[in-house]
């Protein structure tokens, strides 16, 4: 068996008396889209937050390429090559697309202008933003100098995905990327997810939308009551069975 690129074992996270994660495992294999589904309160969010550095688990271990890592801030996870597209998108509306793509890791001009005057390399960042958007086939975004608040929901999502794809060197995590979108925009984002995978980046996709999950996922991780209940193959398990396992109405096939 191949080594998982990202692996979690026995993660526990308690909030007071509430146990959000009760010893949860997760394995992400190279080059796959792993969907994570689960009922409300199953611990999906806590699991993802632990992997992206947004929360620190009380127990358990996270392994990246087989070696243990510990993230205390989102920045740590990012520096390790794990990019997350948060449900809230984490974009700054009044800044333009290029500025958002490079937010928190701006490029500086070469030479004295950059080192002494701390000047940003605007042209360089615009050009790179243009390249990233083109690479993902995001044609509706004409101008990387456009403010993000003038974009539609789907286009904003595309900016967030482009940012993750541009900087994620190991793993991209997407939390409910189609939740707020219409049919056509969802379609476009699903295509983006497939493209990210086809570029060789494994993706963890958290979603409530079963048709979307079954359409793009290579494997489906079913989370229930703070644990991993099962990992199923979308080609051999039906949508209704997956929901039944998720809600506890059915035991997973062994």
């Amino acid at each position, binding site marked *: 068996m191949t080594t998982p690129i990202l692996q979690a074992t026995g993660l526990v996270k308690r909030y007071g008396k509430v146990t959000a994660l009760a010893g949860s495992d997760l394995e992400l294999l190279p080059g796959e889209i792993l969907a994570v589904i689960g009922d409300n309160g199953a611990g999906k969010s806590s699991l993802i937050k632990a992997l992206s550095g*947004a929360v620190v688990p009380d127990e358990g271990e996270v392994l990246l390429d087989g070696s243990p890592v510990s993230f205390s801030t*989102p*920045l740590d996870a*990012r520096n390790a090559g794990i990019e*997350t597209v*948060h449900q*809230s*998108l*984490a*974009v*700054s*509306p*009044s*800044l333009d697309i290029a*500025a958002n793509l490079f*937010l*928190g*890791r*701006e490029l*500086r001009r070469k030479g004295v202008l950059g080192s002494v*005057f*701390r*000047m*940003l390399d605007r042209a360089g960042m615009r050009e790179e933003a243009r390249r990233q958007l083109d690479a993902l*086939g*995001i*044609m*509706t975004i*004409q101008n990387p100098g*456009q*403010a993000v*608040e*003038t*974009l*539609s929901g*789907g*286009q904003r999502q*595309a900016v967030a995905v482009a940012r993750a794809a541009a900087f994620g060197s190991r793993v991209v995590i997407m939390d409910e990327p189609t939740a707020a979108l219409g049919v*056509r925009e969802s379609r*476009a984002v699903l*295509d*983006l997810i497939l493209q990210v995978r086809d570029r060789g980046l494994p993706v963890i996709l958290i979603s409530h939308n079963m048709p979307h999950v079954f359409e793009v996922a290579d494997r489906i991780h079913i989370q229930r009551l703070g644990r991993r209940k099962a990992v199923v193959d979308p080609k051999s398990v039906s949508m209704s069975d997956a929901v039944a396992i998720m809600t506890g109405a059915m035991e997973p096939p062994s």
Partner: protein
Amino acid sequence: MTAVVEQRDRSLLTRVQHVLHAQATIGPAVVLLTSVIVFALLSERFLTPGNISLILQQVAVVGTLAVGQTIVILTAGIDLSCGAIMVLTSIVMAKVASETGLPGLPALLLGFLVGTVCGLLNGMLVTRLKLPPFIVTLGTLNVFFALNLWYSGSATIRGSDMPSLLLWTGQTFTVGGTRITYGSILLVVLVAAMAFVLKNTAWGRHVYSTGDDLEASRLSGIRTARVLLSVYATAGLIYAVAAWTLIGRIASASPQAGQTDNLDSITAVVIGGTSLFGGRGAVVGSLIGALIVGVFRNGLALAGVDVLWQTMAVGVLIIVAVSLDQWIRKVKA
């Protein structure tokens, strides 16, 4: 995402909205230009060198405060304590120099240090105790003002007792018949430097994004608490520069000076097109905003309009500016 964007016909109003959205400073610049033309037509004394010189002097102190106020407001904060920091700092500079005979430069630097520390205190309260900036600076406004009364003993320090460096900002040079104070030049240099930093550095961008969406900035890896702390501290330093300009302007250091300058600086920032909700605006706009208020008050006075109507005009301007900002924010693609 492969669909081509349709080119919709835009009404003139929508186009104006888009232009203002892209360049928030255009609105205030147009207002300033128009008011200068109107007042010049109303009174022939308006555009005389002496009168221009007077307006620039009147604007220098509030304009300098507004530079600091702008960066605080860009982070979706507000600083009610700016005037109190300025007055406290001016008293410290003047009193230490006049009583201990400390030379001008160290006295000035000591003032800069005091201003920065005051700003840092505001920043700590905002980031550590996570209190709203309005409440923090309402509190520190009173604290700093009380410290100012205590340290000064409620007494004014005369300019003749100070080293000349502290009064330098009030000295003038003449360009084409117009006497310009060094304080006004200091303001222009400060605005240019801050505009450069906000536009061209990562720090500037982080100031905007922190004010725009704090949580999104944090998730993007920006150390938002550090950004806020640096903004309040820098603002404090700028208020200390305003203190220097204030001493030059009134040729003394008075514990009762600048009582309403905190609100006047907010007025300048808002009229200058910077949004009170953060993340949008420019420091050049604040300079223009300060000039608009100066020109309005001066122009209406020359036209023989009573002070109370001048105040009302400024009030109307504020409301118009904020309504305009709300409208611009609703811009659609």
